[in-house]
């Protein structure tokens, strides 16, 4: 009875819920602050569904921004940054936070150097994020430049 009852409800409320196919399952972050991140605009389903074909459903690839499944194993700093750029920019502005830590880990920054990494991104926020239309590529490249000028962190710059 319960299944039937709830089925009725589902029927009542679900009309047209599936009318729109996703722009690309899990691809892109349509709601980022920075222009460079924005993906296919109306993510009707994109945010709430995943594409179940292939290895990207099993933690096999970086997953990164959801579009890039070509990246092989391991988080690269760049793909991680692209994935969480919204959160990363907020943490960089504040000088602390989990997105900042995650990006530093993905870039291979050792625990002893992470406070310095946070400090550096905080102090160079305006260089790394010059405007709201900057792309992830540009942010990554500026971050590399800034790290190269730092004695403690230059060893992590590529």
């Amino acid at each position, binding site marked *: 009875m319960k299944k039937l009852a709830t089925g009725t*409800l589902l029927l009542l409320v679900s009309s047209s819920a599936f009318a729109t196919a996703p722009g690309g399952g899990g691809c892109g972050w349509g709601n980022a602050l920075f222009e460079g991140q924005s993906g296919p605009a109306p993510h009707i389903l994109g945010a709430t569904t995943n594409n179940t074909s292939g290895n990207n459903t099993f933690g096999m690839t970086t997953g990164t921004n959801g579009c890039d499944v070509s990246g092989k194993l391991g988080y690269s700093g760049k793909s991680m940054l692209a994935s969480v750029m919204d959160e990363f920019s907020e943490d960089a502005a*504040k*000088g602390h936070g989990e997105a900042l830590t995650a990006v530093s880990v993905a870039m291979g920054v050792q625990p002893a150097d992470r406070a310095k990494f946070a400090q550096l991104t905080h102090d160079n926020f305006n260089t790394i994020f010059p405007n709201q239309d900057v792309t992830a590529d540009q942010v990554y490249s500026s971050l590399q430049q800034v790290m190269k000028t730092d004695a403690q962190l230059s060893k992590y710059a590529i």
Partner: protein
Amino acid sequence: MNINLFRWLRAAIFCPLYLSSFTPYVIAATSAATIENDAVLPAQLISVASSKQLWLKQEWLNLLHYKGYDNEASSPVDDPRFFNASSGKTNPQQELLASLQAFYQNVTDEPDTHPQCRFVARLHWLQKQLPEHLTQLPAVNCPSYIEWRKQVPGHKASLIFPAYHLNSPSSMFGHTLLRIDPVDDEANSTWLSMAVNFGANIQASDNSLSFAIKGLAGGYSGTFIVTPYYKKIKEYNREENRDIWEYPLNLTPAETERMVQHLWELKDINFDYYFFDENCSYRLLELLEVARPELKLSNQFGLTAIPVDTVRSIDNADLITDTLYRPSQATNINFLLAQLNPSQKNLVLRISRDANLIQSAEFKQITPSTQNTMLDAAYRYLRFQQYDEGRSDANAKNSFMLLQAINKVDNFQSPEAGFSEYQKPQKGHLSKRLKITAGNSNIKNTKANVDTNREFAELQFRMSFHSLEDNISGFLEGAQINIGSISARAYQDEVQLQQLDFVDIFSISPKNQFFQPLSWRVYTGLEQQLINGREHLTGHVSGGAGVAYEPWSRGYFYVLATARLETNSQFTRLLEPALGASGGLLQHFSFGTAQLELNAEQFLNEESRQRIKFIQNIPLARNHAVQLSINYQRQRNELNRYESSDAQLSYHYFFH
């Protein structure tokens, strides 16, 4: 609107759906056909395994997800690739013997497909059981598995419970997933841990009808999906504004290792999927049973596996060591706003529309620490809006200006919302409810001035889940979702079906200058209705939409415009429509919850009703409460005028 409908729908069935582009696999390509190979087994291997009756061991039954033993065994895995014997789905013994055989298969140039690489946990367990006899195995290198384990090291695990989301009480069923952490994830980054999710695969071509039917009847398959945890944080905390509860588990590294090995066996494997019982939460229980075979979790759930109930069963099994909390963006915004006075809140709103206002004298005269709170609130509010509405240039520009301002502050503190003990979802009342009521009702014919007084007793059973006035600990305020409730009432001279609710959902979401959610109600079922001086069993579909406000803490005023479609033996038309209004006050006190509600409805056939109800619920303990309710109703049509009133005293018992 589509977004909301979809979120609602998805939440209503507990679990995530994976929009799938996959095509159904081709049966028999890999499994049954390959096991009857000619590999030579060591002498005695089969006879020792048989004499030990290893297929009866709980570990083996768990690894194959069998329910029942021997002839009654059946695995919910709906995928021949998971079995080595053609009868594997129902025969633990044949499957075990065929697996032993399969491990001796010749190694091809695709080592990843070798049974040793695909059934890592099985092999590991059987080697422990048969150390002397499961020997001389062909050496296989498993490149994909080895690579995968670099991503999913597996040292410990947490149970993750994303709770409700804003104005979607149906999601109060929540969802559960597991997180697999490496050593020292706190020092490194929990964001980079892996989340393990079980969900249904839906097809883009499915329409809502086939979706509902298949979901209930088992027409969908479900698979496990492993994704980085930060994606889940973004999905729940930011996109859906659901708080996330994290429960570190006391699984040992060896137990976690066993679970991760088994997870690999489940890669791309299809299970039967049912919304209510064999859902996301249920499958996680099975994973935990693989990790720790002596656990008895999944057999506690028959008809439904409501996520929060599974959290409780895991808690009861003493697996949970701690409760951690990741507030959603909306929760954090409310937390910050609560620290501000009305004019400061107003300024936050204006700053979010024009960030240049942070240069104004009005802003600059505020103390620095409050300024920080306002910057943080305005920035977070912009992010909230952008997740809701999509990127706009104005939002991006204002957000960026606020980030620059935040960046100028030395050591910017950004505190987040915490939680009170009583909010822990696992500490809330259980999901099923029994209600025993004694009452007195009075029906008065106002024209003839005749009244009838009757005493009654009533018994109600509710399948799930939570009413507005129920014990609020662990639940979302203003969110009611009841599915499947039935009650019978006994008067001195008769017993009647009093009410049968299929669905009763009521969302009271307070509006303020920052958030403008809709408050709404939908309910349908059968109920006794006073018409022409007597109660008549009436079928109805009722609903309403409107607004709610929270003028003071934990007090909610609401007003809804309502509509109703009714059928009963007294009306001439088969379906009689009505319009109406409903308004009330819901107030949570420290000692319980009170609700006062006024309803009026006018039918097309001149029938009109006005109702007032008052409820006071007093929790006695987590799963016990008493409730007083007083109802008054006036019913009129062209012929008659009646009034009825009743007073009821109930005892509520919640159970699993």
